[in-house]
Each structure stands twice: as structure tokens, then as C-alpha cells.
């Protein structure tokens, strides 16, 4: 008979009875955990779509003015070594957060990781072991010559404070601006179209490639009968990364063809931006004023 497939005898036998119930709870391996964490981090921090939907002071400002103003505030923190000014900037960030209807938790989860990382990097500065200075707290107990120095405390505090405030301002851009607004705003600030397109494409296709990796992990899980060792998981992860690389190269080539097909010739053309409103100028000028104060304090 045409097309008939001969099945081996063992293939036809259904297994009798129900499956035994395991007493041990199933737990994700490190690969699944890592992927889930990357995925949720990307979705929560980068791919925010609700930004402009909520009303608040920052949302009422044009994305171009919002981005320019917050960048200006970040720049003022970057050049300042004055703890009082940084505390003031921190209060500004807090006020903007409140007035924009952003919850402390929403901002905190974006700020926490960079600040924690900065704290770890800054840690040696506190100790006399790495940088000499006037003793503030003796932690050597009189046996070891180790102490936390006054200079170290001040330097570390100013550095961590600066990072916290700057990250807060950048996080405020992310949580109050939609994807579209963000890229439109960058475009309006005359950032070269090529960089914006490259940035947008990166965000756009990270999502697709993450989905591919997530599906690969699910496919592996669906075929796993018993837990495999660390070595197997590592080998699998490496093989998926190579697949991802091949896939991203293929995608890049196909996207380039799709753009070319629709008339792209190396320069991204977009709608001409509309003019800014008075409130946008107020926000930008206020930010410039804060920046000038920071410069003045530094002189």
C-alpha cells in the first residue's frame, strides 16, 4: 500500500497503569533559572509599554524634553563631588518619582542592582588597608592595622550616592517613556538615525532571540526524563548559544533585506518632529539651571 509505514512492534504497545506520583518536588535547573531571570529582567526593565499611559509630571513633558532634561540632571551629578548637591539631586529624583506616579518599588528594582554592584566595587575604598586616611572606626581590634577611614567613608558615600541618583534619573526615563517615545525622543535630539536604528533593532531582536532560547529550554525540559548533570547542562547551553549566534546572523541578513526591499538606502527617514510646548522648555531650562549650579559648586 502506498505510503504505509511499518511500525516496530514495541512502538505499538501502550504502557499499562497510571504514572507513579513523585514525592520530590520538581525544581528548575540553573539553565532554566538563568533564562527565566534574564527574560523577566529584560521584560521588566527594558520592554516597558505602559510608560506614557500613566499621567504625571514627566509623562506630560514631550519625550525629547524629558530625555534631554533628565540627561542634563545626570550630567550635573556626574560632574559634582559635592555631597549636599547630590543629596539635593536625590530629592529632585524622589520628587519626580512621586509626581510622575512611579512607585518606589518600580524604581527601586531598577536601581538596586547597579547600586549593589557599585557598593561591592567601592568596598576597598573604605578601608585603611587599601587607602590611608584618618581612622573613623577601628575594625582590627588593636591586633590588625585595619580601620575604616573618614576619607574612605566620604569618598565611598559620595560615589555611591552619585551612582544611585544617576541611575534613578535614567530609570525614570525608562519607566515614564514608552518604547516608541524613547526612540522618538532620541531621534528628536538629533542623535544620528543609524545609532537609533541599531539601538532599536538590538532591543527588538533581543526579545525574539530570548524567546528562541526560552523555547529551546522548554523543548529540552520536555524531553528530560531524569535530571542531568552540570556538564551536560553547560554543553547544552553552549550549543544553544551557537544556535542563537547563527540565528541572529540569519535574522540580521533577512532584516537588512526587508529594509532594503522597502526603500531603505542607509538613512532612516522618519516623520518631522512637532515643536516643543512651553512646559517642555520650562523642564529643559530648569534642568540646565541645576546643571549650572553643579558647575558653579565645582569651581
Amino acid at each position, binding site marked *: *500500500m*502506498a*505510503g*504505509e509505514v511499518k511500525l516496530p512492534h514495541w512502538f505499538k504497545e501502550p504502557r499499562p497503569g497510571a504514572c507513579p506520583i513523585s514525592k520530590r518536588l520538581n525544581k528548575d535547573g540553573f539553565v532554566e533559572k538563568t533564562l527565566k531571570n534574564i527574560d523577566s529582567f529584560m521584560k521588566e526593565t527594558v520592554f516597558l*509599554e505602559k510608560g506614557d499611559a500613566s499621567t504625571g509630571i514627566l509623562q506630560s513633558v514631550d519625550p525629547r524634553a524629558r530625555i534631554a532634561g533628565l540627561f542634563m540632571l545626570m550630567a550635573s551629578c556626574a560632574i559634582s563631588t559635592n555631597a549636599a548637591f547630590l543629596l539635593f539631586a536625590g530629592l529632585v529624583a524622589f520628587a519626580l518619582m512621586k509626581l510622575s506616579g512611579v512607585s518606589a518599588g518600580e524604581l527601586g528594582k531598577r536601581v538596586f542592582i547597579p547600586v549593589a554592584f557599585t557598593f561591592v566595587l567601592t568596598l576597598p575604598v573604605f578601608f585603611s588597608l587599601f587607602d590611608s586616611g584618618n581612622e573613623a572606626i577601628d575594625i582590627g581590634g588593636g591586633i590588625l592595622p585595619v580601620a575604616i577611614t573618614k576619607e574612605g567613608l566620604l569618598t565611598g558615600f559620595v560615589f555611591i550616592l552619585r551612582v544611585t541618583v544617576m541611575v534613578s534619573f535614567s530609570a525614570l526615563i525608562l519607566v515614564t517613556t514608552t*518604547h*516608541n517615545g524613547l*526612540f*522618538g525622543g532620541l531621534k528628536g535630539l538629533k542623535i544620528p538615525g543609524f545609532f537609533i536604528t541599531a539601538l*532599536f*533593532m538590538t532591543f*527588538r531582536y533581543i*526579545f*525574539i532571540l530570548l524567546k528562541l532560547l526560552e523555547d529551546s529550554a522548554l523543548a529540552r525540559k520536555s524531553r528530560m526524563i531524569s535530571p542531568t548533570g552540570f556538564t551536560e547542562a553547560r554543553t547544552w547551553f553552549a550549543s544553544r548559544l551557537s544556535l542563537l549566534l547563527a540565528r541572529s546572523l540569519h*535574522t540580521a541578513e*533577512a*532584516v537588512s*533585506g*526587508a*529594509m*532594503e*526591499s*522597502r*526603500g*531603505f*538606502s542607509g538613512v*532612516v*527617514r*522618519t*516623520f*518631522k518632529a512637532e515643536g516643543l510646548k512651553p512646559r517642555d522648555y520650562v523642564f529643559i531650562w530648569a534642568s540646565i539651571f541645576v546643571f549650572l549650579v553643579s558647575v558653579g559648586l565645582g569651581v
Partner: protein
Amino acid sequence: MNELIYRLSNVSYSYGAACAVEDFSLSISGGETVAVLGSNGSGKTTLLKMLNGLLFPTDGAIEFSGAPLKEEALTGEFRRCFRERVGYVFPESDVQLFCPTVFDELAFGPLQLQMPDDEVRGRVSSLMEMLGIEALKARPPYTLSTGEKKKVAIASVLSINPDVLLLDEPTDGLDPRSQVWLFEVLQGLRELKKTIIISTHDLSLAEDLTERSVVIDESHHKAADGPTHEILNNRELLLRANMIHEHTHRHGAIVHSHSHGPFSRHDEHDFADKERKRRGD
């Protein structure tokens, strides 16, 4: 007689040592609706990419409206005119949808062709209304379903108002309602005398929509070129090109074989129909 849009003379294309299209000659006139039929890997996509000036023959020549379609010629005014007149819907919608929102996606092509902003806005809005996708306007394309992505991908090409529409496997992944939507859209475009070239292995789409079919066999050669109804009635040709297959199934106690596609009618089905009629069901 309509204007000759494409003339392919002994065109071949290879990806390194792997041949994708071999010694292919073809002419397509304006207003024609042509199905390019072939099994997976037969070279349909490569052929469409060559027709869209994304790939160029390793051998042979392609002419578009009498002008040579070559890599070095696709520049300046000719390039602009060609991109304005020929639109290509990719098989994977994800690679085609790269803008922040659906609205931006539809505006991308007209903006690249330097149309005035107001005209682009008007064109995009009316197109969204025509295709019934206004609700998707502000959505980022990656949040859409497969069917919605396909609709937006088609709309993003239609916004250029191309004279020639190249569709690569347009029904792949579409649910029945979306397939009907696509069919109606293409039917409308056909009535506007657009040239439509569809690469597919969906024989029902070819049967319903096209008057001419070109078959590529598994050796990447042109196996046939003629009226769709004749091609779809050529059982031996379709079997050879792997467009239909022999299939075994069961009707009660009867187990029998027949081929899929336009030859799916057979004695047992006819017998069952007659039996039903006789019983008055």
C-alpha cells in the same frame, strides 16, 4: 497586450556549491496573477528574492520593465522607482516588522521613498481602515499574534502602493479566517490590475486566486508553466514536484490510498456520498 514586467533568461542562483535555481526562464506581464509552486527547498524564495532585487543571478539575466535588474544598476532613480513599484512580503513576518509600532511600520516604506509627512499619515490611516487593523495602530509588532503580524507585514508593503506584489508563503501560519481575509485582499488587488506573484505550496490558494502557475521541481528547474487549472489537473507533474503525495487512510473497514490536493476525490468518497444521498441524509 500588457507591459512586460519581468523577463528572466536562463537564470541560475547558487548558495556556494548548493544550487537553488537552475536555468530558469520566465516572462511575466503587468496585471498577471502567478503562483510559483514548489516543495520546500525547491528555490521559490530565492526566485522571489531575485525578482525583488535582493539577490542577483549567478548566471543568466533578469529584466524589469525592459531594464536590466543587476546589482550595479539598482541605484539612484532606478532603485527608487523599482522599490516603489515592487513590494515583497517575507515568509517570516518577524524579520519584516522592525519598527516600534504598527503605525511606524506602515509609514516606514513611504517615508524612505521621501513622501511628504501628511501624505504618509493619510495613506497609513486609510490603509489601516481598509485592512481593519486600526486597533493595532499603537501596538509594538512583537506583541502581535502570528495572523496579526502577517496582516501588518502585508499592510507595510501595501503602504508603498506597489504595482508588483511578491508574496512568499502568505498563508503559512494563518488561521482560516485570516486566510479568507488575505484572499479577499488579494482579490481586490487583482481587480486593481496589480501584478501578483505568490510563492506557495498551498494549492488551494493557487487554484482560487491565480490564472497562471509556474512549477519548480526538486532539481530546482522550471518543471511547468501554464494555466493554473491545467497544472493542478496534471497529477503526474504535481507528484514529481512533490506538491501532492500518496496518502493512506481508512473509511470504516476500507483502507485505501489516494493522493492529496486536487485529486483527493476517489471512488470510496463518491460511494459514501452516493450512499448518503440514497439514505436522504
